[in-house]
Every structure is written in C-alpha cells, then in structure tokens.
C-alpha cells in the first residue's frame, strides 16, 4: 500500500529532493555550469521514474493527488519542458554575471508546482500547485533585475504578473469557498454526488465554478484575462517566457480539464456560455492584436492567446462529444502547442542573452540567408502554428475540427476559421521578413557561440513537430489509452 504510494509520488519526491540538492549545491559552490548540470540531471532522473510509476497506475495518492495515465503524461511533458528550458537558460544567463544559480532553484520549485497541478484531484492540491508555480514565476520573471545591463523590463513584468496573479488567486479562492459552502466537498470527483445530494441547483455553485474558471483563464491568458500576457512575455527573460508559454499553460490546462470533467460542471449552460464567449473572444482578439505587433515575443504572446482559445473549443466540445475524444484531442493539441512554443522560443533565445535580446521583426530580417538552420526551425514552428500539413499543428487543428464538428459547435468553428485566417497574416509576415535579403550582418553573433544544448532543444522539438505531423499514430494510440479513463 505505502510502497505504491511512494512509487506513485516518485516524480514529485524526486523533484523535491532535486530542488533541495540544487539549493544546497548553490550555497556551497557557486558555479553556473555545475548547478545547471545538476538541475538537468535531477529533472531527467525525475522524468525517468515514470518507468516505475506506469505499472501501478491508476492510483489515488492521498485524497489530494490522482496519479493516472493522464496526469503522468502531463507531468512528463512538464518535466521535458523544464529540461529544455534549463538548457536554454544556461547560455542566456552566462552573460548575467551575478548570482545566476538561484534561477535553477526557482525552476525546480516551479516545475514541482506544475507537476502537482497536473496530478491534482482536489481543490487544496490545485491551490498548492498554482501558488507554488505562481510564486516561483514572480521571481523568475523578475530575475535579472539587479544586473547592470538588462535586456528588457523584468521588474515591470514581474510586478504586473504578481499583482494580476495574486488578484486571480483571490478570486479562485473565493470561488472554491462558494463551491464548498454549497456542496461541502473539495475533492473533484466527489462533486457530482454532492451536487445530487444538495438538491436544487442554486446559482451559488455556478458562480463559484465560474470564479475558479476565471482564475484558470488568467493563467491560460484567455480574453478578457489576457491583458498581462504581452507585457510579461516581452519583459521577462526569454527562457522564462518560454516557461510561461509551455509548462505553466500545460499544467493549468490539464487541471482545468480534469476539474471541468470530473465535476460535471459543463452540464451548466452558464459555464458553457462563459467558456464560449471566452473562446471566441480569445481567437478573434488574440489574432487581431497580434497583427499589429512589431516584436516577436509579443506576437507569440498574442498568438498564445489565440491558441488557448482554439484549445477551449475542445474543452467546450467535451460537453457534448464522447469525453475520451475530447481529452485525447486536448492532450494532442497541448502537446503540439507545447513543442511549437518551446521550439519558437529556443530560436529567440539562441540569438539573445541576458544583456541583449534580438526580438523585433527587424532583427529577424534575412535570417533565412544569414543562418538558415535557425530560420528553418522557426519557419517550421510558424507553419505548424498556422496548421499546415506535415506538422504537428495540422493534426492538432484536425483534432479541433473533428471535436468541433462532432459537438456541432458551428459558431466556434466559424470563429476558428476567421481567427486562423487572421493568424496566417502575421505568421506569414514573420516568414516573409526572414526571407528578405539580408542587409544587416553581424547581429547574430550570439548564435555562432551558442552551445550544443540549444541546438539539441531546437533539433529535438523540430523533429517532434514533423514526426507528430507525418506519423502521429503512435502518439494517438498513447493518448487514446490515457483518455479512456474519462
């Protein structure tokens, strides 16, 4: 019994041990390379424990956490993302000559929080995970604030994220309190029974759920809770932006999906209505605002708003289509989006460092002819974001259309097509910029000196995008397996 419990929580335990080890090492030996290497090593060790966890699934590890194929998939994804980001962070912070070891401690604790989120089956675990992730993120966003030369505006971004995040945590907590007041339970899967027992449905429960959804929507940067996104994306150091775009979103979406499905909250018309408005608004506004940006990080920020809107279509469809299909679709799209974002930010990171970030459209002019490897990676990412065949993004889009058609969500599908059409414009603009003749030279010196780690991240992610796009069957089989439990 207890041995299974320990095995099941192995990833979480390993991450905790890893954070402590990294912290102690940093206290005794301040060496960037050692600390970074140790971080990657602990993350990899935590990742590999999935071999032991897999046979004993599913398992309810205490009331708070539910380990099943679904949570394991997202935990693995999160840890892989964290490894990638640690590899990007090393060259980036090499130029940052004061105390860059603590960054990795924060990275470890944030990852721990994200994994807890992905496994949580209880409001307490949800809140714990969210806060652990959130608090670490504040510090990570504002990390280079004491450096003499700062590429962007980390302090402003950090404060912005802190205030908005604290506010929404408050709202979420209030929502949890309302739900608890109405049905008297905090476990996700106890909610349907408790709802039945509570009898007539009062608006209190729905309001509570909506407040929790609002909290999640903030982390997922869905319209109208998206206002922080572009500024924080731009102001934060590139690896942290990558973390925000990938790990933070994947963890939050995983738990939101589980909460909505386990609690049957999608049976309420009010919840569907709110989600539909958020999805449509995110797809249109996200894409429209992206058109006007001149900064690639901001373009990615707005594009992430739009993509989370697309993902929300799948979540809404879960109300009317077979649940396993929608879970499968959501997991695939999230995986695809995760890989694309990480790859895209890896390219920006490759030509940036903590003192100077090359992230405006002008910096990318002629990149195809100056450094074709970087631009091929980025073009693959952009085509995948646009949903062109041969890439993971296409299979993801295909999944959205499939669930949308089965759920007969014609309005949202129309918005999706309109949104994607607008989206094409700015993806193509960036591609076109890279294809223009190179009339500036010498600005991408950072890329020449970039260590092997960044290349590994870019190559692995690009291969993943193409592999998932050309032969998705193995991954589909895995996802079908994990979605069967819903």
């Amino acid at each position: 019994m207890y041995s299974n419990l320990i095995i099941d929580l192995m990833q979480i335990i390993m991450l905790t041990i890893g954070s402590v080890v990294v912290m102690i090492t940093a206290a005794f030996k301040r060496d960037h390379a050692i600390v970074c290497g140790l971080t990657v090593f602990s993350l990899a060790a935590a990742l590999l424990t999935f071999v032991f966890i897999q046979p004993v699934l599913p398992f309810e590890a205490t009331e708070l956490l539910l380990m099943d194929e679904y949570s394991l998939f997202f935990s693995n994804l999160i840890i892989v993302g964290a490894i990638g980001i640690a590899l990007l962070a090393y060259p980036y912070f090499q130029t940052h000559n004061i105390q860059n070891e603590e960054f990795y401690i924060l990275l470890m604790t944030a990852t721990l929080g994200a994994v807890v989120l992905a496994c949580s089956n209880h409001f307490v675990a949800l809140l714990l995970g969210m806060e652990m992730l959130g608090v670490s993120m504040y510090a990570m966003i504002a990390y280079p604030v004491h450096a003499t030369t700062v590429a962007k505006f980390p302090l402003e971004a950090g404060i912005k994220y802190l205030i908005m995040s604290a506010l929404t945590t408050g709202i979420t907590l209030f929502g949890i309190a309302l739900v608890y007041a109405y049905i008297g339970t905090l476990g996700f899967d106890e909610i349907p029974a408790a709802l039945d027992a509570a009898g007539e449905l009062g608006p209190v429960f729905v309001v509570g759920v909506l407040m929790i959804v609002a909290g999640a929507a903030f982390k997922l940067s869905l319209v109208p809770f998206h206002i922080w996104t572009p500024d924080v994306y731009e102001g934060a150091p590139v690896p942290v932006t990558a973390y925000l775009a990938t790990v933070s979103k994947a963890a939050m979406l995983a738990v939101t999906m589980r909460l909505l499905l386990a609690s049957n909250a999608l049976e309420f018309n009010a919840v569907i209505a709110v989600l539909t408005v958020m999805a449509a608004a995110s797809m249109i506004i996200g894409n429209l605002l992206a058109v006007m940006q001149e900064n690639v990080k901001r373009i990615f920020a707005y594009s992430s708003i739009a993509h989370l809107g697309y993902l929300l279509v799948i979540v809404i469809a879960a109300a009317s289509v077979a649940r396993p299909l929608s879970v499968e679709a959501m997991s695939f799209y999230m995986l695809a989006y995760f890989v694309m974002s990480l790859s895209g930010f890896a390219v920006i990171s490759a030509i940036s460092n903590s003192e100077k970030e090359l992230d405006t459209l002008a910096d990318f002019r002629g990149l195809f002819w100056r450094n074709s490897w970087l631009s091929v990676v980025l073009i693959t990412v952009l085509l995948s974001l646009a949903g062109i065949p041969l890439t993971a993004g296409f299979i993801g889009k295909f999944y959205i259309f499939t669930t949308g058609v089965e759920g007969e969500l014609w309005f949202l599908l129309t918005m999706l097509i309109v949104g994607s059409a607008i989206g094409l414009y700015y993806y193509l603009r960036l591609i076109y910029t890279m294809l223009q003749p190179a009339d500036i030279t010498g600005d991408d010196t950072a890329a020449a000196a970039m260590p092997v780690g960044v290349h590994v991240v870019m190559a692995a992610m690009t291969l993943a995008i193409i592999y998932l796009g050309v032969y998705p069957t193995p991954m589909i089989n895995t996802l079908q397996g994990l979605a069967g439990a819903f």
Partner: protein
Amino acid sequence: MILVWLITILFIGGIGAWLAEKSNPELPRYIALATLLLDLFLVMLMLFAPGMLGLDPLEQADLGQPGEWLVLFSADWIPRFGVSFIFGADGLGLLLIALTVFLGLMSLGSAWNEIKDRTGFFYFNLLWTLAGVIGVFTALDLFLFFFFWEVMLIPMYFIIAIWGHENKEYAAMKFFIFTQVSGMLMLLAILMLVFFHYQDTANITFSYFDLLGTNIPEGAAFWVMLGFFIAFATKLPAVPFHNWLPDAHSQAPTPGSVILAGILLKTGAYGLIRFTIPLFPETSSAFAPTAMTLGVISILYTAKVAFGQNDLKRLIAYTSVSHMGFVLLGVYAWTAQAVQGAVMTMLAHGFSAAALFMLAGGLQHRIHTRAMDQMGGLWGVAPKMGFMAVFFTVAAVGMPGLGNFIGEFLVLIGSFRISVAAAAAAAIGMVVAAVYSLIVIQKVFHGENKNNLVVKDLTFVEMFCFGLMMIGLLWMGMYPQSMLNMSEPTLRSLGVLFFN
C-alpha cells in the same frame, strides 16, 4: 506503388537540388531536369506501355473499387481516424499527371536562364509544388487529398515571396490567405462529410470510395457541398473568388506563373469533377444553375477586365479566369460533351497560358517592364517571339485546329443542351476573347518601336519549349479523340450524363 514513386522522386529531387547548391549553384537545375525527365519517363511508360510496369489495363476491374483504375495503391496511415494512403490513377488522372510533368519541364525551361540567385532553394520549391500537384491528382483519401492540397501551396508561396517582382509580399500573402482559408472551409466540409458517414455507418473513414453516396441530412448537405465548392472555385478561380490571381500572376517569376496558370488552376477543376459533384450529386444538380451562372459571369466579366489592363501579365491572368469560366460552365452542365470539353480546355489552356506567361516573362526579363504602353513594334526586333505570340494568342482565342477550340466548342455544345441562355452568353465570350487577345499583339508587336527597345530574340531553350507546346496544341486540335478516349471511362464512372 508507381504513383508513390512519381511523388517521392520529386520530393527527393527537391531536397537533392537544395543540398547541391552548396557545391555548385549551377548544379540544382540539372538535378531538377534529371528528376523531371525521370518522372516523365515513368509517366510515358504508364501512358503507352503500362505492361512494362506490371500494370495490366485489362485487370482494372480487379482493383476492387468502382471506376476504371489503372493503378491503385493503399496502405494505412492513421488508423485511428480511418486515414490511409490511397493513390489511384485513371484516364483523367493520367492526362493531368502528364500535363503536370510536361509543364514542370516547361517551367524549368523558363527558369533555366532567369533564376540566378538561390537556385537550390528555388528548384526545391519548384519540385515540391509539382509533387503536391501530382499528389492532388492521385490522392483518393480525402485527408491525403487535403494534405497534398496544402503541400503544393507553401512552396508556391516561397516562389512568389522570394523570386517575385516589385509587389511580391502583398501578392504572396494574398495568394496564401485565399487558398488557405478556402482550404480550411474544405477541411471543415470534409470532416462534416466524414462525421455524417460515421453517424450512418459507425465507421470512421476518409476513403473516397466509402464516402461516395454518403447520406447527408437535408439541411447540412448544401453547406458541406459549398465548403468543397468554395475551395475549388477559389483555386480555379471563378468570380467572385478570383481576386488573388491577377496579383499572384503578375508578381510571380515566370516559372511560377507557368506552374500557377498551367497546373495549379487545374487542381480546382479536377476537384470539382472528381469530388464535389460525385460526392454530392443531388445538391450539385440543384446548385448547377448558380455555378453555371458564375461560370458565365467569369467568362464575360474577366474578359472585359482583361481588355482594360495595361500590365501584360495581369491581362493574361484575367484571360485565364475567363477561360476557366468555360471549365466551370462545362463541369456543372455535367453532360458528356461539356465535361469532355472542360477536360480539353484544362489541357489546352495549360499549354497556351503557360506559353503566354513564358512570353510575357521573357519580355519582362529583357526589357524590365510589363507595361504594354512602353512596348510596341517588337516584331521588327524579335520576329521569332512575335510569331510565337501570335500562335499562342490565336490558340487561346479558340482557332479551329488547335486544342482550345475543341475544348470550348465542346463545352458550348454540351451546355447548350442544359441551358441555352448560358451557352449563348458564353459564346459571346469567345468573340470578346478575340478582342482582348489581338489588342496584345497590336500593342506589343505591331506599331512603331517608339522607345527603340532592343530585344534579344528567343533563345534555343525557349524555342525548344515553345515548339513542344505548339506540337501539343496542334495534336489536341487535330486528334482530340486520343485524349477524349482516355477520359471517357473516368467520366462514365463518375456519373456524367452520356446521352448515347
């Protein structure tokens, strides 16, 4: 398997050309030539000696699917969604594949001396576009079809965006967005079709053969059909979706225009013949009057717009839309003569439009302008070019004895049976065609050479290409039966109305 090879050879050749640029910038074009010749050889074998490839025309019935298939290949791809690799070629498919490979060689000929920079990436894109087009002409799984539909789009975008003329960014983006958005509508329609089929049979499949005859609920059928129609009508293009074409054509480099006009437009017509009408026979016949009206409007309206152009390439682009109007009219008349005429128009227009764009591109390459008011009297300095221009213009106008005449004439006969008014109005289009075509000859080649332009006459490579296309058009005009015989079984199996 042979069809998979046709496509794979082009994909591999493309990558080879890209890699070869590093060692020698002259090398990619020879690699592209070798790749295309190899494909041409295989296509010729399929056309004239299928036995040598192990294809027995007599065993067609054994291929297990309705239709007159010469080759069928199928393998699993994504079993989860019933997606598989199904490639097939019948008479119609083979004709179009042959057209694709042949015009691929022509566009290579026009690129031979024109494309000087970044040759590797250029030929990569050229070959990948052709691979996508052959995929479109052979794919019989709707997912696979959509896949190739998009594959041919991106390399074309690169060709326009990198090697295009002064306003290339705008043109390339317009081309991409029009095609991609209409493609997304088609994807939505495909998924709806699959979904309705699934509701009926509890079987998820994208196979063309399984989806034929799907029972679609009353209200939805029209919308599903419309999704396909818009995608194909945008590619064709037909008014009101034709807007991207003049920009794309005038800004694309010559080889790009050749492929666009010669081949890419035909994928739209092919889609209508192969997919839209057979998949939705009833809805399509209810929609036919609208589509035929759009066809007639395309013929007349764009002919008038063409007449008002000063930009030579824009003018030819508009005439393309006008000729494609005949195709739309013929396809939706859905009688034997009309559809045969549409197929002949597709083939013949492929040749004549490709040749005209090569001439226009050649002129621009020599005198750096496309404005016709800057030209004049060029016959005196470039008589070979003048002769070719007259020949292909006359062909496009529909001179008896050349391919275009057969096509348009058959379309008119065939649609006359269905709608006298549409046929009569379309016939006016043939008269107008003479006006806008001859004005080109007058403005460019006749008159006096007021700017004292010195134009180098056609080179050997160009003469060779034009010569081949002349022979092709003459063949089509003199002995069209050879092609009609090939496409007839296909059209019969697709349910075209044969009255005899």
